[in-house]
């Protein structure tokens, strides 16, 4: 297999003194998405956090555009958008302030994506733009976190349970958002227990890399 734009070789991660998975390898080319699957407690979140550089893996190598992620530093994180369990939304700022500041703090001028208003429009939060984010519902906060993906315009999306608290129509529109991202040459890594419909997405069973436990 040739090395993808994003390539992982021999990755091992631990939680506490327990090895979660070892020898994990994967490749991702532009326009590809991976659905990481496995039961609870296997280390899916740990894997995603290691892949986007938030935590140091015990062993192994993560490569982006041929260079080691540990050497690239900000050159790599500048190309990854991460939506984790936490939304990363500051409750005392309004929805549009959250996005506007995010675009100024997290993007270089050349890489800016959609404007705050357009992004809010796209996730259906136009009417909530000027409300403090803490007054939004769980689902609305989640949509606001996902709107940040549009504002940042980064090639690699790492999404940890992005569909939590979303209703059926929002799930569909988020899937189509990811589809557009892939069509534009973007990459995506998704962990989700909820079913979603996304043509062309590959399954990745994390259990293959975990030791069988008694």
């Amino acid at each position: 297999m040739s090395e993808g734009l994003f390539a992982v070789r021999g990755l091992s991660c631990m939680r506490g003194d327990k090895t979660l998975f070892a020898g994990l390898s994967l490749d991702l080319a532009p326009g590809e998405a991976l659905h990481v699957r496995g039961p609870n407690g296997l280390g899916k979140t740990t894997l995603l956090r290691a892949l986007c550089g938030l935590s140091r893996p015990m062993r192994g190598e993560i490569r982006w555009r041929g260079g080691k992620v540990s050497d690239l530093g900000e050159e790599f994180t500048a190309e990854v958008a991460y939506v984790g369990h936490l939304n990363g939304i500051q409750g005392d700022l309004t929805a549009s302030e959250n996005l506007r500041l995010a675009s100024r703090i997290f993007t270089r001028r050349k890489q800016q994506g959609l404007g705050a208003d357009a992004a809010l429009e796209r996730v259906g939060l136009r009417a909530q733009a000027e409300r403090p984010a803490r007054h939004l519902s769980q689902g609305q906060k989640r949509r606001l976190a996902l709107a940040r993906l549009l504002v940042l315009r980064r090639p690699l999306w790492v999404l940890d349970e992005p569909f939590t608290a979303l209703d059926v129509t929002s799930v569909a529109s988020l899937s189509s958002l990811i589809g557009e991202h892939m069509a534009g040459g973007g990459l995506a890594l998704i962990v989700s227990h909820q079913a979603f419909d996304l043509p062309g997405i590959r399954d990745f069973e994390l259990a293959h890399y975990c030791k069988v436990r008694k």
Partner: protein
Amino acid sequence: MTADLLGAMRAVFVRELLVFWRRSTEVMTALVFFVIVTTLFPLAIGPERRELMLVAPGVLWVAALLATTLSLNHLFASDYQDGSLEQMLMSPYPLSAMVFSKIAAHWVLTGLPLALLSPLLAIQMALPMKAIGTLVGSLLLGTPTLTLIGAVPAALTLGVRGGGVLVSLLVLPLYTPVLIFGAEAVAASAGQGFASVAHLSLLGAFLALALSFAPWASSAALRVSLD
């Protein structure tokens, strides 16, 4: 690139001011604490002006130091809880620059008002007029150092059991040099009115050292805490 970085740092600064401003109670806590602690001392020691004057530099400085320590918990905690800090790690700019902006904004909202308010409390503590300028100067030089040093333990104790108390335990020994020279500067100018320049310039040296070291150390600490 540099313009972008400065823009991002300014955006972090503005964001901090906005958030802190909307939660004005948190800003006020440290200040009110400073006022109350210095007011309690005359009640405990007695209203004798000569005695008050003797302990005034120490009392004012210890109160300022404790107030700063108290405010450290607000530096990263809420951004840690809502995931904003995680996002900040994914910035295209060095984390230490972002952290520096956060610390600067935090000082503007806690240390600066504290220094500006201190003359009032100095009068209350019977500190001679000629020492008040030194007091404000020493606090202006000293409190940013306290906030910078304190950012490291504040980052290390994120999400840790009993984090709030732990921060004070970790930070107070590190504060001793600033306390010694800060209080000494005020005492010197309250007494003979000389030698305080030397203390102030040492405080300035500590500030320079903390400026070069603390943002880097606290961003390393944040990475560990978010690992």
